[in-house]
């Protein structure tokens, strides 16, 4: 057997290009489905982990998936907005702690997440550099966002306008980087956290400007009458909040009407969660404009759909794999034809047909062993790096 392996080894190494091609083909057939399985398992784990640590989400009626993805993973699709009244609604039940989320805006490609300090406590987020949110205009960066933007506490970050030609006058806000979070291997690493009130500043609902009582430029004032000053559009609003101008920042209208995208509700216990969910199941379903959902259930449904697709993918891989095996077999058979003379020589030299078969078999063993080793190595790497791979490929 050793001699057969030796001769086979010589053949395989002499025809290295052909051998490498065969090894690559066999490895691919093995690695693809197995890696996909590993990565999907890890995706499921990551998606579910985040969903299962978020007990309840309240949002506008509509796509539960959009609401969940936006609230948990700060997805691109922004659900229909609700108002801070939804936070009050949860708070007044005394059944759960409401944590508002406003996930609408971006800053240099990273999602701006408006929330409050309870979010950090709830998610167990730790400040690695600097401090947490303090004043209006502060932002705290996720670990990866800070690294990719090259920002540290003390730097500034401009919010991005919602549309390129934002004629409505929503000016970018120059935010102060107050701190950087420790890595969490979750969507939080890629977020720019601000107080929800700062998100309203970005939107233009909260703003600061010169005190209109002190304005002397007539082009800035449209009308003064009965204790009311009407400003013109020329009146510039501050695009940066500083200790010097923070006092000028103010709300127009009731804060309860201000928009958010969802509320994370952290119930006291399971009974409270059940009662709270019941409050949203109104007798008059049409009158109820909000929905409350369990993120774990939504993600589970999503994963079941993904697995249905995965089954199709598996079937496709099986078919492709079979075709590849058949092609490889054909290649092997054709190469045997080309090696007819060599086999005749061996026969004439006294080699039995069984030994000839063993020589050819040894070549296959070497190819398969090399493929197995390479497959093992690649799978070990996929297993070792599954978390970051999933984050890079599937869960941004």
């Amino acid at each position: 057997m050793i001699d057969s392996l030796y001769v086979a080894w010589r053949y395989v190494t002499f025809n290295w290009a052909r051998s490498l091609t065969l090894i690559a083909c066999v490895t691919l057939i093995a690695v693809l489905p197995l890696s996909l399985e590993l990565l999907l398992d890890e995706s499921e784990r990551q998606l579910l982990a985040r969903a299962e640590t978020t007990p309840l989400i309240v949002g506008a009626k509509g796509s539960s998936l959009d609401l969940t993805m936006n609230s948990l993973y700060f997805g691109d699709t922004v659900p229909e907005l609700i108002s801070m009244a939804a936070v009050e609604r949860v708070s007044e039940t005394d059944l759960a702690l409401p944590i508002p989320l406003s996930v609408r805006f971006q800053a240099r490609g990273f999602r701006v997440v408006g929330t409050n300090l309870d979010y950090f406590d709830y998610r167990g987020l730790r400040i690695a550099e600097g401090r947490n949110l303090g004043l209006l205009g502060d932002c705290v960066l996720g670990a990866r966002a800070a690294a990719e933007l090259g920002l540290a506490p003390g730097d500034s970050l401009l919010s991005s306008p919602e549309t390129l030609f934002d004629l409505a006058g929503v000016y970018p806000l120059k935010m102060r980087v107050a701190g950087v979070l420790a890595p969490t291997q979750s969507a939080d690493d890629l977020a720019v956290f601000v107080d929800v009130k700062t998100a309203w500043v970005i939107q233009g609902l909260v703003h600061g400007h010169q005190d209109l009582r002190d304005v002397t430029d007539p082009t800035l004032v449209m009308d003064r009458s009965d204790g009311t000053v009407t400003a013109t559009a020329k009146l510039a609003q501050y695009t940066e909040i500083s200790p010097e101008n923070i006092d000028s920042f103010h709300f127009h209208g009731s804060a309860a009407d201000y928009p958010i995208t969802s509320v994370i509700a952290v119930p006291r216990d399971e009974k409270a969660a059940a009662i709270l969910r019941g409050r949203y199941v109104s007798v008059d379903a049409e009158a109820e404009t909000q929905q409350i959902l369990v993120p774990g259930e939504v993600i589970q449904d999503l994963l079941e759909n993904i697995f249905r697709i995965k089954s199709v993918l598996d079937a496709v891989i099986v078919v492709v794999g079979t075709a590849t095996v058949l092609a490889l077999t054909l290649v092997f058979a054709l190469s045997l034809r080309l090696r007819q003379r060599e086999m005749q020589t061996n026969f004439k030299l006294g080699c039995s047909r069984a030994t000839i078969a063993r020589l050819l078999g040894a070549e296959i063993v070497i190819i398969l062993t090399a493929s197995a080793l390479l497959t093992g190595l690649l799978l070990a790497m996929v297993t070792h790096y599954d978390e970051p791979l999933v984050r890079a490929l599937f869960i941004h």
Partner: protein
Amino acid sequence: MPDVKHTASLLAIALLLILAQLRTAEAEDRLQVYAVNYPLAYFAERIAGDLAEVRFPAPADVDPAFWMPDADTITAYQAADLILLNGADYAKWIPKVSLPRSRLVDTSRGFKDAYIRQPAGVSHNHGPGGEHAHGGVAFTTWLDLSQAAQQAEAIAQALTRKRPAAKERIERNLQVLQSELLALNERIAEIAGANPGRPLLASHPIYQYLARRYGLNLRSVMWEPDVLPSERQWAELKGILSKHPAKWMLWEGTPAEENVARLRALGLASNVLDPCANRPETGDFLSVMSDNAKNLEQVFQ
């Protein structure tokens, strides 16, 4: 003999160290409670006792409603176990900072439907969309002592949620405080009831709840005790007096002599009704309110 003395000294030192450790441990167990004004801090101190360390870090010479804490103070508030808010848009700095909602206690939430809303001095709007007034809620809620008692109850409830084992003690302390507040409440009501409808003037629009609760016929100007009003302001006062013939001006602090003299010339006497939003130089909240009651007695004689 020296050995015995030596041993005794060591034992004493050891005992002291142990006691110090115990006290430290005890101190570590104490709730950290931050308040946005002095009345709430006082209520919390009375109700919590040694259960909590109550802090009200605004400097003594500022109006807590318009105070802006620095970054370190904001961080201290953020780290507190409980943050006592007055509600009614009192502390103007609250909307401008980030605080953990789970630890906020809106002490006047129970009577938010009873907030007094008023037009602001100058409102503004941006374009033809309509007028918006901002800051139009009166915020000195504690000057209605029955409301103060409700705010104290809200504090007690929050403390009990944090320290359920101390429920009885908290309840007991609350009842004592509430009885004192309500006694004072009745006394002021009686004083004001002696001459209902008597026209009065206030130097600053901060007595809305007091006026409502005790039926005071009160009009306000926008004066500061230590600032001489402008001639326009004096003219405005005269205009008010022509329709509201008050004989007393109630000041939030000791007025400047010149103001007192000029008011006297107009037939107005001056007295102080200290809203006690900040920590008094002497006494405490109840002693200040008691002094206010005495001053009102003068006014309603």
